[in-house]
C-alpha cells in the first residue's frame, strides 16, 4: 500500500516536471478560481440582502434594492469573465501538456531499441501515447481544478455561513458528513458487483470476438445453434450481474440527495427558530443560507468521484512514463565513424546472439563476405531468418563476437551511416501515408521526378504507377491503400533503386504474390544485385542455387553453410529441403 503511494508520489513529481513550464498559468488559474468561487458565494448574500429590503407593502426600499441588484449584475459579469479566462487557461495548460508529453514519448520511440518494438504490441504502445496521454491530462488537470474549486467552495461556504449565523452553520457541518459516509458505503459495496460485471462482460466480449469475428467458419461448420446457446447463457448471466451493479451504484445519487434534503430541512427549522427567538437572522439571510446548504453538499459528492478519476489519471501517467523511461539503445560513441561508401567486406567473427539470455540462438558464427558476393539464407518458416537481418542492420547488437564492415566493428560506426549503406527490401512491405513520389524518394527526399521515374522503371513499377489516377502524385493512405501486395513490393524496390546502396538485404516475397509480378520482382532484384553484396532471404530454393554462400537455418541457429553443390553432397538438412520442393 505504502509502496503504491510512494509510486504515485513519484509519478506526480514527474508530472510536475511537465506542468512546471506553465507554472505562471497555473498560479493565475488558481487565483482566478479562488476569486470566482468567492464571488459566486457572495452573490446569494447580496440577493439575500435585497430580499431583506422587501418586507411588506410600504416597507420596500427601492433605492437600496436597485443599488444591490446593479451590484449583483456587475459581479455576475465579472465572475463570468474571470471564469471564462480561467477555463481557457486550463484548456491551454491541458492541451499543451498533452502535446509536450506526446512529443517526448514519440521522440523516445525513435531511440528505443528494436527489442522494445518487437516485444510490445503496436496497439499497446499506441494506446499509451494517445489514449493514456489524453486520459491523464483530462483527468489530472480537470480533476485538480475540480478538487481545488471544490475545497475552496466548501471552505468559503463554511466561512460565509459562519459569518451569517454560527449556530445554523453547525447544523450543516454536523449533517453533511453523513452524505459522504453513505456515498462511501455504497461505493465500497458495489465495487465487487462492478468487478463481477466487468469480468462477465469481458468474457462475453471475448466470445463475440471469436464467434462474430470468425462468423464464416462458424457457418462453414454449422455451429450457429451451439454458438447461440453459449452466447445466450452468458448474456443471461451478464444481465443479472449488470442489473445488480447498475442498480446498486445508482443508489448513490438518490441517497446523497436525501441527506441533502435533510440538511435543507434542518437549516429551515433551525433558521426559523433562530429568527423567532432571537431575531439573529433575517429572512434574506435565511434564504441565502438555504441556497448555501444546497451548494455546500455538492462538492462533497463530487470529491469522491474526482478522487477515483485522479487515481485513474495517475495510473495512465504511470503507463506513459513507463514508456518514456525505457532504456534507449546504446548511444553512439563520440568519435563514431561515419561510413561513407562501403566496399562490401563483411565479417562475422565468432558471433553469438540471443533475444533472451536463457535461449541461445546463433552460436559462434564465422563468415566472411567479399564484395559482390551473394549470400542466401534458407530454412523452414520461423527458423529465424530475420534474426540475421536484425544483426546486419544493427537493429539488435550481437551478444558475443563482432560483425565488421570493411574491417570495422559496426558498433563503432554511426547507426545512420551504417544503415544507409544497406538497401533493404522486406517481405512485409511498409508504405507511408503520402504520395507515391514521397514513398519512393524516402531515402533521398530531394530527388527529382526524373530520378524517381528512372528508379521506378528499373523496378518495373513505372507502368502501373503511370496508370494510377494521379500517377506519381497519387496519395496513398495508410499501408498503401488499394495497391496490391506485389505493387507495394515494387515500390519498395524502386525506393532502393533510387539510392543504390553498396550492400543489399532482400527478403523474398512469399506465395501471396501472383507469378507475373513475382517474375518482375525477381528481375528487379537481379538488376539491383549486380556488383553488390547481397543477402537474400529465400523461400524458393530454385532462385538461389548460384549463391556464393548458402546459410541454412533451423530453430534460430545456422546449421549448415556452403554453396549449393557442397551442401547437396553433404546430404544433410539442405539436401532434404531441396528435394522435398
Amino acid at each position: 500500500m505504502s509502496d503504491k503511494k510512494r509510486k504515485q508520489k513519484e509519478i506526480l513529481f514527474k508530472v510536475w516536471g511537465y506542468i512546471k513550464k506553465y507554472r505562471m498559468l497555473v498560479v493565475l488559474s488558481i487565483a482566478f478560481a479562488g476569486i470566482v468561487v468567492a464571488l459566486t458565494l457572495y452573490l446569494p448574500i447580496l440577493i439575500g440582502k435585497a430580499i431583506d429590503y422587501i418586507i411588506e407593502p410600504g416597507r420596500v426600499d427601492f433605492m437600496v434594492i436597485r443599488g444591490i441588484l446593479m451590484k449583483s449584475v456587475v459581479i455576475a459579469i465579472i465572475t463570468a469573465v474571470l471564469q471564462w479566462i480561467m477555463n481557457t487557461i486550463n484548456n491551454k495548460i491541458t492541451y499543451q501538456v498533452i502535446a509536450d508529453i506526446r512529443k517526448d514519448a514519440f521522440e523516445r520511440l525513435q531511440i528505443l531499441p528494436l527489442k522494445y518494438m518487437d516485444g510490445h504490441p503496436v496497439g499497446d504502445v499506441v494506446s499509451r501515447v494517445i489514449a493514456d496521454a489524453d486520459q491523464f491530462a483530462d483527468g489530472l488537470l480537470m480533476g485538480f481544478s475540480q478538487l481545488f474549486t471544490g475545497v475552496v467552495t466548501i471552505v468559503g461556504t463554511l466561512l460565509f455561513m459562519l459569518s451569517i449565523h454560527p449556530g445554523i452553520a453547525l447544523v450543516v457541518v454536523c449533517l453533511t458528513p453523513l452524505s459522504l459516509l453513505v456515498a462511501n458505503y455504497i461505493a465500497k459495496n458495489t465495487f465487487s458487483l462492478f468487478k463481477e460485471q466487468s469480468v462477465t462482460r469481458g468474457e462475453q466480449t471475448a466470445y463475440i470476438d471469436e464467434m462474430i469475428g470468425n462468423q464464416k467458419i462458424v457457418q462453414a461448420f454449422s455451429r450457429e445453434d451451439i454458438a447461440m446457446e453459449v452466447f445466450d447463457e452468458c448474456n443471461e448471466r451478464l444481465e443479472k450481474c449488470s442489473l445488480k451493479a447498475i442498480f446498486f451504484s445508482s443508489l448513490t445519487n438518490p441517497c446523497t440527495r436525501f441527506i441533502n434534503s435533510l440538511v435543507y430541512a434542518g437549516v429551515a427549522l433551525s433558521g426559523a427558530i433562530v429568527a423567532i427567538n432571537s431575531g439573529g437572522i433575517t429572512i434574506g439571510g435565511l434564504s441565502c443560507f438555504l441556497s448555501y446548504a444546497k451548494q455546500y453538499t455538492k462538492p462533497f459528492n463530487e470529491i469522491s468521484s474526482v478522487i477515483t478519476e485522479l487515481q485513474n489519471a495517475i495510473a495512465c501517467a504511470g503507463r506513459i512514463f513507463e514508456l518514456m523511461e525505457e532504456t534507449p539503445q546504446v548511444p553512439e560513441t563520440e568519435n563514431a565513424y561515419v561510413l561513407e561508401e562501403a566496399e562490401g567486406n563483411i565479417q562475422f567473427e565468432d558471433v553469438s546472439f540471443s533475444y533472451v539470455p536463457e535461449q541461445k540462438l546463433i552460436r559462434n558464427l564465422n563468415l566472411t563476405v567479399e564484395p559482390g558476393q551473394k549470400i542466401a539464407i534458407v530454412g523452414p518458416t520461423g527458423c529465424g531468418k530475420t534474426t540475421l537481418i536484425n544483426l546486419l542492420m544493427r537493429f539488435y547488437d550481437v551478444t558475443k563476437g563482432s560483425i565488421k564492415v570493411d574491417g570495422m566493428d559496426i558498433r563503432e560506426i554511426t547507426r545512420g551511416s551504417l544503415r544507409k549503406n544497406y538497401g533493404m527490401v522486406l517481405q512485409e512491405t511498409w508504405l507511408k501515408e503520402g504520395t507515391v513520389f514521397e514513398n519512393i524518394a524516402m531515402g533521398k527526399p530531394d530527388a527529382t521526378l526524373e530520378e524517381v521515374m528512372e528508379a521506378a522503371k528499373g523496378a518495373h513499377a513505372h507502368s502501373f504507377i503511370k496508370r494510377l489516377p494521379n500517377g506519381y502524385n497519387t496519395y496513398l493512405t495508410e499501408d498503401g491503400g488499394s495497391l496490391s501486395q506485389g505493387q507495394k513490393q515494387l515500390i519498395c524496390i524502386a525506393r532502393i533503386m533510387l539510392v543504390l546502396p553498396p550492400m543489399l538485404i532482400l527478403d523474398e516475397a512469399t506465395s501471396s504474390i501472383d507469378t507475373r509480378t513475382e517474375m518482375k520482382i525477381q528481375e528487379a532484384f537481379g538488376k539491383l544485385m549486380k556488383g553488390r553484396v547481397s543477402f537474400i532471404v529465400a523461400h524458393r530454393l530454385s532462385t538461389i542455387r548460384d549463391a556464393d554462400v548458402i546459410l541454412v537455418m533451423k530453430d534460430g541457429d545456422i546449421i549448415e553453410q556452403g554453396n549449393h553443390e557442397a551442401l547437396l553432397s553433404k546430404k544433410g538438412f539442405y539436401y532434404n529441403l531441396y528435394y522435398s520442393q
Partner: protein
Amino acid sequence: MGKLLRFLKGYEKESVFGPLFKLLEATLELFVPLIVASLIDVGIANRDLGYITKMFILLIVLGIVGLAFSLTAQFFAAKAAVGFVKKIKHALFKHMEELSYAEIDQLGTSAMVNRMTSDMNQVQSGMNMSLRLLLRSPFVVMGAFIMAWTIDGQAAKVFGLTILGLTVIVYGIMLVTIPLYRKVQQKLDGVLAATRENLVGVRVIRAFGLEQAEKEEFSDKHGELTGSQKFVGSISALMNPLTYIVINLGVAVLIWQGAIQVEYGILTQGAVVALYNYMAQILEELIKLANMIVLLTKMVASGNRIQNVLEMESSQTFPKETDTKGCKDMPHIVFENVSLKYGGAGEESLSNLNFGIRKGQVVGVIGGTGSGKTSLINMIPRFYDATYGKVYVDGIDVKKYKKEDIRGKVGIVPQKAVLFKGTIRDNICWGNPEACEEDIWKALRIAQAEEVVQSKEGKLDFMIAQNGRNLSGGQRQRLTIARALVRKPEILILDDSSSALDYATDANLRKALQEMEETPTIFIVSQRTVSIQHADIILVLDDGEIVGMGTHEELLKFCEIYQEIYASQFKKEV
C-alpha cells in the same frame, strides 16, 4: 434507433414506471420552495413554532417519500435498460449468424464485433439515463415555470425569458462545438495513425535514417491538433459563464419586480424567496439536460448503427428440406456456366465456369492472386450464390439443399487457420460433435498433427488460447486440417492450407490424404505447382476464368499460364 424500441416489449411496465416515479419525485421537489415560503410567511411572521415544526416534518417526509420514489425509479430504469439490451444482443447475434458471406464481407467483421460490444454498451447506458432523466429535466423546468406562474404572472414572464435565453446559449454552443469536436477527433485519429505507422515501419524508417523527419512531422501534426483543441475549448468554455450571467440577470429582474409587487401588496416576502429558489432549480436542470443530450446523441448514433445491421437481409434463403430429386448420372460436382460478381464489385470474380468432377478425384486449383481460386471453392458449400449458372453436388442444385446438409458434405480448411478458445478436443469436434477418441486421433494422424498434440501437456485436453495464440502458425494449420477431416466429409477443400507448413510436412500430408480409406473428393488450392502436380485434374484460373484444365503433364504442354507459373518456380529445370 426508433425501431429498436420494439425490444422494450416485455419491459413495458418498467419503462413506464421508471420515468413515472422519477416525475413523482421531481414533483415533490417542486413543493419544497412553496413549503419554505409558507414557513417564512406564516411560521416566522406569526412566530408560530408549531407551524414551523409541522413544515419541517413535512420537508423530511417529502425527502423520504422522494427517496422511495427515486429508488423505485432507478430499479425499473436499470431493469428495463439491461433487459432491453440483452434482447437486442440476442437478436443481433442471431441475425449475424443468419447473414451470408456476402453480407459479412460487406459489413466487415470488426464492425460486426463493434456493433455487438461498444455500441451495445452505449445504448445500455443511454437507455438507462433516458429512462431516468430525459423526462425529468424538462419536467422540472416546466414545473418551476408553472409554479412561478401560480405565484405571480409577472414573474412567469421573467422565467420564460430566462429559460429561452438559457436554451439559446446551451444549444447554440452545442451546435457550434459538436462539428468542431468532430474535426478535433479526426485530427486525433490522424495523430494516432502517424504513431501507428511509425511503429509498424520502424525498420524502414531507421534503415533510411528518417527518425528526425518523423519527429518533425509528428510535431507538426500534433501542433494542428492542439490548435483546434484550444479553439473549440475556448468556445465551449463560454457555456458556464454565459448561463451564469443570464440566470443572474433573471434573478435581478425577478427581485426588482418582486419588490414592486410586494410594495403593492400582491406578493409576500416568502413568495419572493420561493421564486428565487425556482430560478436556481432551473439552472441546475438545464445543465443536466445539456449533458444528457450529449449522451443521447451518442446513443442514437449507436442505436442506428445496430438497427442498420438488423435491417440487413441475408441474400440467401435455404429450403427447409433438401430436395432429393436430382440427376443421378451427373458427376459428383458440376459447375454449369457459373459466374460470380460480388456485391459492389465492378467486375466478375468468376466468369462462365464449366467443369465436372468425379467422386474421389483430387482437384488442384492454381492461379495468381485475385484469380478467383477461393471464390471458386466457396461456391461448393454455397457460401456465395452464383450470379449466373448453377452448381450441382450429387446431381442436386446446391440451392435446393438444406443449409446443414450442404455444409455437412464439405470439410473446409480456410486460408487463415483459426482456432477457438477451448481444448484441442473441443476444437477438433467442431468438425463433428460426435467424433470419438479414435476418430480424432485418426484425423490428427492424417493431418500430420499427431506429433503436435502428443507434445502438448494434456494432449487432447491441452487448452488453446483465444485465436490459438499459444500455437505456432504451422501447428494451427495442421489442427484446422484435422478439424475438417474429422467430419469425414464427402468433399475436402484445402484453401492454400499448407502455406505455413514446410515442404516435407506438406508432402507427407498430401500422401496421407491419398491413402485415406474412404477418399473424399479433394480440392487443393495452391500457388505452388508442387502442391498440386499430382492431382487428377488441375484447374488453372486467370482473372476469374478457367484457362486450362487437365493433368500436370497436359497443362505443361498446352497451357501457357501454367507453364509460366511452373517456370517461375522451377526456373532452371525447364
